[in-house]
């Protein structure tokens, strides 16, 4: 077993919210240990002065000082977890500024999170896993080319995707809605193999990702079982042909959304969230159903409409659906409603998540929702930039897994 990954915790409130154990448990589950950078009182006073953010809460001052000790190299860590209470404005300012500061002044991967007393280790697990992967598998993540014959399977909350790659090319793909996790995975694997004209025996290494990664990973005897944050960033920059330098990856998924700030193919800071399904692909699926179109037709439909003509706020999926129904009843066109739905989802992601990372161009959108051009357009409008949607973007997790899995081929 390799040495434990050391994650520095900068936080205010988890012990008093009753969730410190959840943080410990999540770290332990990925063979990491959480620690609190050691500093003295004089360090706190100096650091707060130097940082220049005059907060009142002493524990936030402590966070700043600990963050500074990490950046100054006085304390060693492999990654940083920043956590503060949800709904605390003072803490949110510190959390954001500190995250940005550490990101800009060090190579430490950072994840930030705002918790409530309901936060569980399960919620934190993917984030911790990504943090430890970045720390532990830098060499693996540095891989820029796929070699041999490998397969990647992404068992997502809505759909399951599989990809077969050979000599740095995608030679087979499979796609099915996720019903029974293993059955859906087997179905997509069969599709991808058939398209590639290969058999299971030809595959030299397998990687899995997504919600069902552990289950299907075990079932398929995967060489790599990896959360979607690192896999998707890797897949995104690979497919976009932008493996070096900075970029931003946005993945609006069926259940939650990821926004990842990537440097040289390795995630630096990332957020994963979606308080409500209203800000996810699920809402667009509902919209399509209500408008009587296939999800693949929603994008083109939205491009013909004007989102501004319909007011829609999908902060909550129930309210979002309500405004959708109301707008149709009031005689709004289906095109306008489709555009408004796309705009609303983009806006939620923009407001809730993109504020937590630094947007660096190019912005790459991936995942099934990146095929909904109305959504990509709305996001581009909000970010005032042209968004890159690479080929095979809907297979992003599977491609990233197949790419990384080639590091496990015997003799490699």
């Amino acid at each position, binding site marked *: 077993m390799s040495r434990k990954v050391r994650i*520095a915790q900068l936080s205010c409130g988890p012990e008093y919210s009753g969730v410190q154990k959840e943080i410990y*448990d999540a770290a332990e589950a990925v063979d990491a240990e959480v620690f609190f950078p*050691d*500093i003295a*009182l004089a360090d706190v006073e100096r650091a707060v002065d130097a940082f220049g953010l005059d907060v009142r809460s002493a524990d936030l001052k402590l966070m700043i000082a600990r963050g500074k000790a990490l950046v100054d190299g006085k*304390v060693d860590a492999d990654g940083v977890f920043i956590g503060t209470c949800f709904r605390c404005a003072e803490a949110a300012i510190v959390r954001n500024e500190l995250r940005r500061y550490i990101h800009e002044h060090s190579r430490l991967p950072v994840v930030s999170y705002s918790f409530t007393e309901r936060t569980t280790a399960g919620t934190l697990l993917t984030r911790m896993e990504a943090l430890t992967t970045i720390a532990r598998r830098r060499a693996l993540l540095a891989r820029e080319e796929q070699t041999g014959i490998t397969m990647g399977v992404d068992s997502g909350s809505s759909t399951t995707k599989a990809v077969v790659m050979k000599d740095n090319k995608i030679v087979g793909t499979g796609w099915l809605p996720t019903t029974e996790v293993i059955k859906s995975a087997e179905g997509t694997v069969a599709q991808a193999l058939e398209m590639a004209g290969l058999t299971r025996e030809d595959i030299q290494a397998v990687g899995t990702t997504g919600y069902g990664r552990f289950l299907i990973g075990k079932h398929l005897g995967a060489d790599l079982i990896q959360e979607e944050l690192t896999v998707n960033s890797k897949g995104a920059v690979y497919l976009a042909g932008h493996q070096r330098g900075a970029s931003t990856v946005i993945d609006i998924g069926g259940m939650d959304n990821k926004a990842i700030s990537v440097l040289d193919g390795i995630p630096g800071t990332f957020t994963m969230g979606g308080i409500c399904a209203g800000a996810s692909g699920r809402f667009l699926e509902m919209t399509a159903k209500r408008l009587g179109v296939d999800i693949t037709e929603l994008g083109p439909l939205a491009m013909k409409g004007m989102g501004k003509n319909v007011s829609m706020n999908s902060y909550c999926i129930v309210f979002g659906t309500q405004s959708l129904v109301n707008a149709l009843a009031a005689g709004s066109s289906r095109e306008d409603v489709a555009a408004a739905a796309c705009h609303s989802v983009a806006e939620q992601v923009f407001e809730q998540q993109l504020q937590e990372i630094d947007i660096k161009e190019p912005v790459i959108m991936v995942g099934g929702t990146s095929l909904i051009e109305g959504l990509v357009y709305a996001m581009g409008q909000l970010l005032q930039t042209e968004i890159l949607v690479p080929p095979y973007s809907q297979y992003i997790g599977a491609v990233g897994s197949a790419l990384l899995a080639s590091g496990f081929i015997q003799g490699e």
Partner: protein
Amino acid sequence: MMAEYSPEYVGTVTRYVFVESPSMTPGELALRAYEASEGVLIKETCFGLQVTGEPEAVDRLIEEIRAFDPNHIFVKDRGFPPGDPRRCRANLGGARPGYLGHEREFRILRYITHGLEELDRRGEEAEVPEAAPAHEKKPKLDIRRLQELIETEES
């Protein structure tokens, strides 16, 4: 992962004893405290001691310890028993937040010591000026005075 918690040291109290004295080191304090301990658990630390035991026994011992050097020994309640892994610096990677709070107050202990000594010296009857109330607000500019100022400016 819900796990059961079974507490240790139930029914005990723990107190920190800090010594900030030119004539007594934490080591000497510990030595003298051991002699008087009578079954109370004593743990030596860099700043003094931690004592743990039945509340009455701890109270008695604390009274004796205080008497060693009343104006240089300070005592505080502690929620955790001594050496608890949840608060241990080695396990946390750094000092628990409470330690930094102590550091803040160590800086002014000498003023408290001086205050205690002066009160002893001046005796019960002596008039001691009280601390200015913290709530004293700066007087706002009187409205009539403002009027005067405006009028002088205008004339």
